């Protein structure tokens, strides 16, 4: 080790820092052999001693106690920091309350819509939805003669045309019927505002039906067992029997209708199809 290397390591040597053992041994050996470096090492050690004395004297200085200003500032800071959090929580609560109010309004609207739809539709809607299409026998189309025009005396279907039976379920009460199977006697042009009541609902497949109208004294208890929906053709005079307007000029034409038969074979409800 030369004097320059010793100079670079003399601080670590006097401050007793971590050094490599070989470097430390070389520095000490150089300090013993070089008079200038030995004097420098001695000066550094003397300086370190004096600095330690100064540090010891400073350490004995009394630490100032934590003043009340600090505590006051700390408390005021905490007090100032809390209101923003409170405001944030208020905003959060308002948002949550608004969301809950909107959800409640949507729920009420859905409930009102369901209640209205149940009140408009006759008791047919109260049929249990558990009656699946496959569990029902195939329905038939019954052609009703003019003499049998009274809805109460509608016979049970006796002609099997191969059409599938359908259960009357609330959501599917306006189900489409295939126009290719049953001949449509009533053209679309015949549908006028005078013939169709205002409560007629439109179907997605261009088939317009009226709501179900009770036939006789149908009650919910008798309809809960399920039933069959049969597409029939009736004389137009049947419209008059149910209080619907009829075009006298087309008296001889027939109109299609869906008749709901309960489990006991009795006609319970009817709707007209166009």
């Amino acid at each position, binding site marked *: 080790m030369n004097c320059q290397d010793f100079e*670079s390591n003399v*601080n670590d040597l006097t*401050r007793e*820092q971590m050094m490599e053992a070989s470097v430390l041994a070389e520095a000490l050996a150089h300090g013993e052999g070089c008079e200038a470096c030995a004097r420098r090492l001695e*000066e*550094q050690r003397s*300086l*370190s001693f*004096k*600095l330690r*004395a*100064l*540090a010891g*004297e*400073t*350490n004995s*200085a009394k*630490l*100032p106690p*934590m*003043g009340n*200003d*600090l*505590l006051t*500032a*700390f*408390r005021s*800071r*905490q007090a100032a*920091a809390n209101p923003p959090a409170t405001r944030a929580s208020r905003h959060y609560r308002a948002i949550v309350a608004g969301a809950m109010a909107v959800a409640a309004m949507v729920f009420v609207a859905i409930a009102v819509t369901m209640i209205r739809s149940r009140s408009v539709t006759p008791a047919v809607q109260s049929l249990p939805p558990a009656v699946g299409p496959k569990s029902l026998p195939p329905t038939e189309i019954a052609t009703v003669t003019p003499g049998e025009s009274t809805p109460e005396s509608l016979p049970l279907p006796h002609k099997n045309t191969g059409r599938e039976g359908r259960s009357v379920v609330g959501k599917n009460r306006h189900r489409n019927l295939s126009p290719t199977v049953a001949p449509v006697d009533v053209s679309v042009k015949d549908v006028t505002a005078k013939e169709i009541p205002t409560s007629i609902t439109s179907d997605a497949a261009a088939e317009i039906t009226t709501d179900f109208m009770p036939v006789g004294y149908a009650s919910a208890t008798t309809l809960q067992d399920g039933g069959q929906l049969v597409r029939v053709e009736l004389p137009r005079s049947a419209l008059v029997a149910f209080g619907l307007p009829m075009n006298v000029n087309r008296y001889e034409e027939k109109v299609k209708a869906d008749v709901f038969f309960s489990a006991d074979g009795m006609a319970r409800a009817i709707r007209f199809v166009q």
Partner: protein
Amino acid sequence: MLAGDEEALAALYQRRARDIFRFALQMCGSRALADDVTQEVFMVLIREANTFDAARGSVNAFLMGVARNHVLRRLRRERFYVSMEEESQSETAKNISRTSENPLDDMSRTETIESVRKAVLALPERYREVVVLCDLQEMSYLEAAEVLGCAVGTVRSRLHRARALLIEKMRPAEEEEAVDVKSARCFA
């Protein structure tokens, strides 16, 4: 402490305030200024505790860095004023020497400490802070580098230069004292 616990603040003060106070006292040589700096550092900690990032360094390094900034600011602001602290310190030293059993040794030791203190205070700030941190606070190079925000090599080189300056500053005083003693003997 961030949650508003006063006991945590008190515990942190008891643990860290001594180092900050010593650093400020050794940097500026004024007890009053050191008191102010210590209070200001903790005020900053209370106000801007959220600025502390544990990934950038320890709490001690953060506090010492704040203390360093405040000390340097105060030193630059009060550069043109003359401190009355030296007189009070010498009075304190006299009081110590009066109460001790060996007044001569204590007087010599006190004079040595005063000379070292003056030499340290006479250093430029960049060298003084390194001496204070590494030699008086006995920090490692790495810890001092964290406080100062510089590289370890910079700390080493500054300390080397600072110690050389201290030796140079203290050498003429010793020689003058020696000359005074010889002249005194001659006159006697």
